[in-house]
């Protein structure tokens, strides 16, 4: 049994549920034969990957859906062995080069070289190029991005790149100018609701509109998340009721508790406990920046207007350091400590005002 997210994923440009005009444009693009490099960007869960797969299908036909997982081995100039797993069909290859960390440059160059040099196996297909799909381009090092730009020009005749990322802020301008940028906005709340209703209908379920709306709002317009939530609700209780609670993943609950602990008490001892919980979250593979954002969302609501600005500035400051640094716990803890101090001062002032 596969998840609803996968089960009801649209497979062709015609069947996409929203951004229909964009889909039509993409169809034109494919039909035009003059296919450029693409840079697809948009928030998480907005359907970038779905659209890319649809484009590929439009380019090559159903053959692209026959996927296989391959392991590729590379050796860096410093004789370090690298291994990366790719997903590929006869026509394209999908890589997440950020898996290999700082050695991504080597991987990118070698991979594209091999792909571009091997000629298309089936001459019957109408395309003279293969597609290399790179996900999370924004996590590539600058070095790798520069290497990418050279490679793009060099192998233009035999291979096209489709780059996929959440934001183009971290993509160097040289790459941006060489690609056709395609922005995939997150579906609106209404669109999410529609999709949810449609999926439930296909499953033979009756989804109350109110619940659908709440799920959509809670998912923050992230369609993948919304579908997962909806399915979790289904497991939790069926038939649906309009006022049923939308269950959250354990780590979010845990994070919420942690935030609550911070608001309850501001002392070194509590900070120490919070640190233990932060470590617990980190061991569960929750990225530090996600923890930071989650904490902020939960903490900010217990603050007064003026404080919020201060807190958000602090969060932004430490989140930046966290991205740069290596020991994320230092920065997370510094943020928590700072918040505690701010909040404590706020409480004390509040008490002083009363008297």
């Amino acid at each position, binding site marked *: 049994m596969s998840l609803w997210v996968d089960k009801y994923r649209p497979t062709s440009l015609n069947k996409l549920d929203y951004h229909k005009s964009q889909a039509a*444009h*993409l169809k*034109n*693009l494919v*039909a*035009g*034969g*003059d296919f*450029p490099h693409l840079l697809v*960007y*948009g*928030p998480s869960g*907005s359907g970038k990957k779905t659209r890319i797969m649809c484009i590929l299908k439009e380019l090559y036909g159903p053959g692209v859906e026959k996927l296989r997982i391959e392991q590729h081995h590379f050796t860096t100039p410093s004789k370090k062995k690298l291994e990366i797993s790719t997903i590929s069909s006869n026509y394209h290859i999908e890589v997440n080069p950020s898996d290999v960390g700082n050695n991504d440059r080597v991987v990118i160059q070698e991979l594209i070289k091999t792909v571009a040099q091997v000629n298309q196996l089936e001459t019957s297909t*109408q395309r003279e190029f293969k597609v290399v799909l790179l996900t999370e381009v*924004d996590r590539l090092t600058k070095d790798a991005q520069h290497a990418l*730009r*050279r490679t793009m*020009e060099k192998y233009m005749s035999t291979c096209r790149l489709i780059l996929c990322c959440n*934001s*183009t*802020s*971290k993509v160097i301008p040289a790459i*941006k*100018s060489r690609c*056709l*940028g395609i*922005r*995939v*906005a*997150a579906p609106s709340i209404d669109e999410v609701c529609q999709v949810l209703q449609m999926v439930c209908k296909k499953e033979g379920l009756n989804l109350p509109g109110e619940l659908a709306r709440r799920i959509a709002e809670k998912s*923050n*317009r992230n369609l993948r998340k919304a579908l997962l939530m909806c399915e979790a609700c289904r497991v939790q209780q069926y038939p649906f009721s309009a006022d049923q609670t939308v269950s959250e993943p354990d780590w979010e609950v845990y994070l919420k508790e942690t935030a609550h602990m911070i608001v309850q008490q501001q002392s070194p001892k509590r900070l120490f406990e919070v640190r233990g919980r932060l470590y617990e979250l980190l061991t569960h593979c929750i990225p530090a*920046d996600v923890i*930071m*954002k989650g904490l*902020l969302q939960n903490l*900010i609501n217990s603050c007064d*207007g003026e404080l*919020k*600005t201060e807190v*958000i*500035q602090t*969060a*932004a*400051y430490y*989140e*930046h350091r966290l*991205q*740069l640094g290596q020991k994320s716990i230092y920065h997370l803890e510094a943020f928590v400590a700072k918040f505690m101090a701010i909040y404590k001062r706020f409480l004390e002032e509040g008490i002083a005002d009363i008297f």
Partner: protein
Amino acid sequence: MQAFLKTGNLGTVSKDKVDPGTSKGNKEKNKHVPWVEKYRPRCVDDVAYQEEVVVVLKKSLQGSDLPNLLFYGPPGTGKTSTILAASRELFGDMFKTRVLELNASDERGINVIREKVKTFSQQSASSVRPDGKPCPPFKIVILDEADSMTGAAQAALRRTMEKQSKTTRFCLICNYVSRIIEPIASRCAKFRFKPLTEDILVKRLRQICDNEEIECDDDALTGLLYTSEGDLRKAITFLQSATRLKSGDRITQADIYNIAGVIPNDVIDSLLTTCRFNSYEKLQNFVQDIMNEGHPASQLILQLHDTVVQLDELGDKQKSVVMEKLAVVDKCLMDGADEFLQLMALCSTIMQQFCCKNI
């Protein structure tokens, strides 16, 4: 061929736009030439707007001699096009053998330059063309994006320039003349390329539209002007991309903005309006929406900058506070910090400035 080049008229370029429906199966390679190449000026006269340069160049063309050249100016103003057109006029069919073009994406270490330039300039150059016409007895080396060369490489180049001066002319092309070391700059005739004016851009774009039979709104053209920032190449690329996506439909300003990744002005305006409310929740929701729309934060702050600078509402002091924060946020974004948090930090600063003003 010669005759074709002499006329140098854009209109003569054959229209080879093929109907998308028939393109499958039988395709010719030349069909998908980027318009930037397709509409590159073929002769010096054709170069848009750079009258001073053209006059000087034409003079030296008549004398069949050329000094070493240094072209500088903002991107997309025709620097590369000019030298290409000039060398085409000089060499005609021998263009390929007489001109060596090196641009930034090639490996350009000191050794590469030395070797390539050396072997290239060692070949003799006769002063007669195959068709019997006279042509200058030298070759041209074009170094595109020369300002991205390291100082050491430039220093090495200076020696090479002197050594090969008998047979070879150099043309250096760069955006910032200040990044070219003084000894090299002094060896070259410097030409500054002015940013293209709007009407020149519009004229060129219109020409292309007519040629390609594209329906294009006037709004879309102004959109192109805005997004390209005087860069003709960029404008043409955007236009082509838009055409590809729309395939025959009318191109609107929104399409252009979409392709260029520009955030519509009303989004910026309503962001500032939200800031005026002095409500953190509203601001947070709005910023979250912008993020969900997939607008990159770097683009947003770029446009926010332009808007805030011109805002009458804020005093200089307040603007300076905002600008400082803007710089910090930009740096943080470059380092990979979270977009939402950084934007919130920026916007809450703006919000503070808006609301403090009244006190």
